């Protein structure tokens, strides 16, 4: 069932289209005359509630997709090599209709809608992205979740000949993520197939990715080839690498510091050299919608 969640603002309310597509050029042009610092402050978010869209150019050139390298520009440089057509997703485990579904088949019955979400990376940068996608719950209902299933596990494509990052064991490949079933069924959780009204660029996880806006960005696994329903908490990439640093839940939480850095603040990408840090919001600003999922849970221990 689509449209169960409605963000308070549409894209046009947030930023006029000509502005978000051209802010970089406007800044560069005006910066020469007036000093870029002054102009840079124009694009700045005053707090994390601000839903001014990140420039498309920034959202597609500043990415973490370690399969293509660890530099932020590596995904943009190398992800073009990834073959996304044909694409299929294996859906297995505790489902009524397991099988290999083609991308076209998966999206055929789904209602694609726009969701403007904050994206908060564990590294303390953030963006606001207009995703196009459908609720994961709709897909799960279609394949039929069996009684007893409690978790959903996801896997990213791992194709060494197209992904130079796989040569280095930065983390365990293939990249894996997982959600508790109630998190996966939550109306905020979507499978995105596009952003800014266009198909997902490869570096952003084409052709289909998860978006869980109240969790750190790495939970929103990209370029998904496998979805497994299971009754056990699945191993996930960063948690396997360091459980102390990256919990299974990974809910955005300013009160729980990453062992190597504080999570109290974040910086919106695109604010320039003098961008201000803004306080990070509990559950990335989606506390009202998702806090009930974690009632009675110690969110520091289960970080």
């Amino acid at each position: 069932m689509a449209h169960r969640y409605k963000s308070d603002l549409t894209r046009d309310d947030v930023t006029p289209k000509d502005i978000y597509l051209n802010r970089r050029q406007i800044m560069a042009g005006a910066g020469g005359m007036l000093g870029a610092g002054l102009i840079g402050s124009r694009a700045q978010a005053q707090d994390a509630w601000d839903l001014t869209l990140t420039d498309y150019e920034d959202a597609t050139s500043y990415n973490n997709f370690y399969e293509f390298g660890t530099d932020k520009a590596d995904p943009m440089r190398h992800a073009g090599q990834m073959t996304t057509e044909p694409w299929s997703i294996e859906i297995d485990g505790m489902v009524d209709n397991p099988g290999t579904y083609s991308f076209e088949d998966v999206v055929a019955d789904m209602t694609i809608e726009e969701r403007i979400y904050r994206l908060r990376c564990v590294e303390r940068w953030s963006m606001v992205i207009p995703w196009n996608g459908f609720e994961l719950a709709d897909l799960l209902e279609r394949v039929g979740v069996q009684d007893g299933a409690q978790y959903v596990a996801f896997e990213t494509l791992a194709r060494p000949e197209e992904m130079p990052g796989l040569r280095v064991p930065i983390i365990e490949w293939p990249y894996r993520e997982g959600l508790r079933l109630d998190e996966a069924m939550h109306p905020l959780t979507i499978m995105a197939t596009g952003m800014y009204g266009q198909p997902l660029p490869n570096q952003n996880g084409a052709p289909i990715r998860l978006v869980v806006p109240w969790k750190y960005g790495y939970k929103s696994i990209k370029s998904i080839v496998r979805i497994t329903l299971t009754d056990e908490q699945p191993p996930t990439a960063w948690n396997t690498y360091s459980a102390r640093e990256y919990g299974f839940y990974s809910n955005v939480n300013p009160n729980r510091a990453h062992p190597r850095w504080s999570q109290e603040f974040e910086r919106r990408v695109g604010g320039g050299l003098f961008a201000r840090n803004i306080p990070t919001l509990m559950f990335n600003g989606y506390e009202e919608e998702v806090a009930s999922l974690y009632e009675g849970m110690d969110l520091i221990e289960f970080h």
Partner: protein
Amino acid sequence: MEGADRISARPGPVAVLNGALRRVPPWVLYIAGAVWALWLFRLGLTGGLGAEPITELEHRYGELAINLLVAGLAVTPLRRFTGLNLMPFRRAIGVLCFFFVLAHLLVWAVLDVQTLARVWADIVERPYVTIGMAAFVLLLPLGLTSNNWSLRRMGPHAWRRLHKLIYPAAVLGAVHYVWLARGFQMEPLLYMAAIIGLLALRLRPASRATRP
């Protein structure tokens, strides 16, 4: 006569290179370093460092500093093992290294972390920041005494002893770099290996070759 001088006196590519380098005044390096630092800052202002220029500028200055650190540590082994004489540039390399460490630190504190309270909290609470700061503290007296006046005042013996602080500072710098990486990454480990390797070369007694 030192072994290195013997080698460089022989005709050959190294001697030619040494001859050419002798004509390059060290201040060229200072100019190049300053221009490079300003150029990077300008790139950050005008969008040339990507969508998140603060972090990028911080990393670029830090990477330049650790490259210069490796270069500075390589001067003596290069002379000993290949005869290439970069001694006239060593001070400039060291001062520039200090300069880029300072720039890295300032970008981190002023543009990235932004408030004094949080700068202090990070130094106290985050081990990789603590270690980076310790490396800077060790470099501070070296940066301040890298001039002829200090060398004369201290005398070459004390000056040289003080400047051995570059060895622990280099190791701390490498640990700082390794520690902040997310996941298993090769580059910081290669720097660590290079620095440890260059320090290990110094364990070999310097005078053995010239003994009868």
